[in-house]
């Protein structure tokens, strides 16, 4: 797989000397230990690492869902760790898309309503052409009127992905998006994310422990014990798998 990283790639998000500690004294856990990382715009970045490596924490901190103990986080040019809860919420609403491992959708809303949710929260009218094109890309045109309970797990995650992209966010953060899916549904979702990056120039950051999922990315970062220990450009599933075996060993 050949990936051309733009020479003058701008930075979509970056962390500077970010640490995150839980607890105090001897019992303190360092989930992130002085991590600095830049995520390029228009790239699909996978954050890899074994359980407890701090990869989810890094994602939460980058996405403004959690605040680091120290260090700065920038989304575009905005330093977000000092933002008020309200500003941070509006930032998430307008500039960030989310895909979680599960429970991405409000059970009372239809698929279409879920997709439009962030825009409706913002009081904005969704761009119908754009929404339709995304819906068609994820192959949900037939299921828009259904509620989450009437959709399969894969369909639910695709609705979540459509929602994350619908508001044209600066970055889409995905936290183990395929964790609860069978391999076929997982492949469909990843293919869709890949396509969004390639065709729409979307920036996607994904946390995963699955080397196959990482194989869809342009770049893989490896975390262990709260630090970035390595990275891989244009990773393949096999290469990642081998590397992970080393890390685990």
């Amino acid at each position, binding site marked *: 797989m050949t990936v051309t990283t733009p020479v003058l790639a701008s930075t979509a998000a970056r962390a500077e000397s970010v640490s995150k500690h839980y607890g105090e004294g001897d019992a303190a856990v360092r989930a992130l230990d002085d991590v600095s990382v830049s995520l390029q715009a228009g790239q699909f970045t996978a954050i890899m690492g074994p359980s407890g490596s701090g990869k989810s924490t890094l994602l939460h901190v980058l996405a403004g*869902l959690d605040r680091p103990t120290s260090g700065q986080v920038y989304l575009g040019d905005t330093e977000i760790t000092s933002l008020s809860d309200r500003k941070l919420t509006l930032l*998430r609403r307008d500039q960030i898309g*989310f895909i*979680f491992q599960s429970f991405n959708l409000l059970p009372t809303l239809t698929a279409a309503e879920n997709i439009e949710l962030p825009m409706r929260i913002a009081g904005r009218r969704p761009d119908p052409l754009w929404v339709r094109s995304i819906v068609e890309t994820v192959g949900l045109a037939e299921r828009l009127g259904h509620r989450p309970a009437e959709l399969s797990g894969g369909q639910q995650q695709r609705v979540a992905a459509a929602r994350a992209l619908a508001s044209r966010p600066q970055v889409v953060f995905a936290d183990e998006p395929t964790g609860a899916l069978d391999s076929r549904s997982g492949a469909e979702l990843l293919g869709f994310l890949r396509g969004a990056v390639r065709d729409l120039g979307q920036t996607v950051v994904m946390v995963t422990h699955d080397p196959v999922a990482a194989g869809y990315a342009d770049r893989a970062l490896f975390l262990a014990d709260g630090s970035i220990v390595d990275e891989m450009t244009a990773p393949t599933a096999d290469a990642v798998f081998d590397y992970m075996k080393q890390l685990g060993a």
Partner: protein
Amino acid sequence: MFKTTWRGMTAHKLRLVLTTSSIALGVAFLAGTLILTDTMKVAFDQLFGKVSSGTDAVVRQESAYDASSGISLSRAPIPASALDAVKQVDGVAAAEGAVSGYALLTDTHGKAVLTDGGAPTMGYSMPRDTALRGDIHLLSGHAPRGPHQVAIDASSAEGHDIPLGSQIKVLFRGPTETFTVVGTVGYGGEKDLGGTSAAYFDTATAQRVIGQPGMFDEIDVRAADGVSDATLAKRLDAAAPEGAEAVTGTQVAKEASDALNSQFEFLNIMFGAFAGIALFVGSFIIWNTFSMIVTQRSREIALLRAVGATRRQVNRSLLLEAGLLGVSASAVGVVLGAGVAKGLNAVMAVLGFSLPSTSLQVAPRTIWLSLLVGTAVTVFAAIVPARRATKVLPIEALRDSTPGARHPSRLRAALGTVLTGAGVFAILQGLYGGGGGTLVLLGIAGTLFGAITLSQLLARPLAGLIGSPLRWRGVQGDLARQNAMRNPRRTASTAAALMIGLTLVVSMSTFASSFKASIAPVLKNSTNAELYLTTASAQAAGYSPEASRIAATVPGVAAVSASGWGQARVAGSGAGYSSVDPATAERAFNLHLDAGSAKDLGTDGLMVTSKAAKANGWTIGDTVPVEFAATGTQQFTIRGIFDYNTVVESDYVISLAAQEANEGDRLDSTALILLDRGADADVVKDRITAALADHPDAKVLDQKGFEQEIGGFVDALLALVSAMLLLAVVIALLGIINTLALSVFERTRELGLLRAVGMTRGQVRSMVRWESVVISLIGATLGAGLGVGLGMALARSMKWYGVTELSVPTTQVLAYLVGAALAGVLAAVGPSRSAAKVDVLKAVVTD
């Protein structure tokens, strides 16, 4: 199992507090009512015991009734000559004749000393023998002597600035007289006798102004040393003249206390009813709480079942939890009850029922009854949810599914429809099929329960409908509406509490509004009078007939037709009767006589309504026994049959003379004033007002004023009822808080998701707030609808009694709806805050 139960209870503290309060409030009202009743009884017993402590025995005329019959007790006087015979009886140390009757004090400016809450205004003879006075003390000055001296109760003296030595007018049934105040009187530690205003005269003066010359109302006797009260009473009884009896002083005190207590009985019934309503509303919250507990714990219950707990054990564990909750909530309620009793006492003082002070009486009966009722209601309300718990299968422990909301069953729909239908049918049958008022009330109950049953089915569509304007409130409004529609059972039972409260308040308002709308047309139809004379204070028993006599002498007045009111047993059953002036009644009242004439009433004639005549099969000329307290059974002849009349306000009418003959102390309650042809009503009204300057116990009113006078009592009653029903609304609010808190807890992940994708805290709060408003409005709308319907049914059932019009108090109902919406906002304050504080990470991270 006990440990599991205990852990479960303490796990959700807020829910525990809210559920406990909802039961505790109802129990507090129950306990408060019981405590107040007991306290009043003890206070009156003590007071009358002290007051009559100097009187060992009393000789008086026998009465047909005793104090417990609920009919006002009056006795014929006993001849003064009996006093000599009494003094001859062995063991009598002192004996004096006593007189009591209507006497209204005025202050130094001539204004009436009106008592509050309908307490009597009385005149008494002051015993010469100080021992006979018992605990009636002169606090200042000296006892009245001679024809121009009076001693008055210390409360009136202090409250109306009447100093010793001042000249005041005192109103009697006869002409008003002026007296010099020579003393103030206290009773034990009190300054008045349960709010009664009292004027004391020497015995001869009392006979002249409030009694009859040569007659006593009773003879009070003090025993010689070594003679017991009972022995003395027995000896006196043997010596008493025909028709008289002798009883002990203790007995008289007890009778007086009982009579006063029975006057306050309506308050106990009213407060008791509110306690019942509060507990009923509270039971919905208990039901809701236990449904939530079962839903939340279904995995836990399944696990218990999987490790071997039987259905019965699961059921028992939950009922035990309900029992524990009930007992502890009721215990809190009993403690609060003391405060409620004090509060009610304060409310009554404001309304003018001042009660003698004594320590609060918490009888063992109050404690066990309150605990029993509170616990029983709690356990009863938990039965259905506990049964549902037994249906949780062990396998559910292994499933990872949150139990969804079950949809209301068809059985419920059928049952609700049948109940409501039967209720409505019963109302209609009662109103138009001749079924009577009882059937209407049964129908109202049936409709209410039917509506409660159906509310689960109505909750969803109603939430959708009421919430539809929320679309304009953006996504949070839309989500609020959908959340309210999500679990119709929970929404319905939460709203039901508010529905009941609103149903009661609105039906009362509708009835009152219809009643008031009926006054003017009915009054026009009932009388030909242009002016009315009535009591100055709406609560007074009546005014001196002297005022009617004075009004009749005013130029421009053609006739004054006075009427009075009394109680007797007509044909064996207790009833109120009216008394009219036969000479003028037919001209003044529109009696719509079917047969006979009021002119023929005489002193043994009776007029009855066509309804009473029909019910008893009476016709003109039939003889009916009427039993009076003072004179016993008298045979009356039916001389007229008339239609119900709003001013007459009774099924039975006798002449004023007949009442005078059988009841003695008689007051006028209303007089209809007919004017000379061409006389100006306003001018004559002013003249009458001027003529009655010395009669502040009566006032003259024109048509409009009289309408307002009648309507005013309805307003006062309505205000009191509405204030009490607020309690039900407060409990309903606790239920809404409870439900919202649980919903927020259940929806943590959703809330987290919403926050993650950009919903601000303000938007989250607004979402919960709107959900609360929707739930409140569901209850309020159902309640208002039901209330209007039931209120109109109630009004219709009273058509015979002069509620001829139907009127819906639209503004008031709308105000209640707005109030309910605001209450919803208030209830959401806490839950919306905790919803906004949901930790986004905890909600979205799968662990």
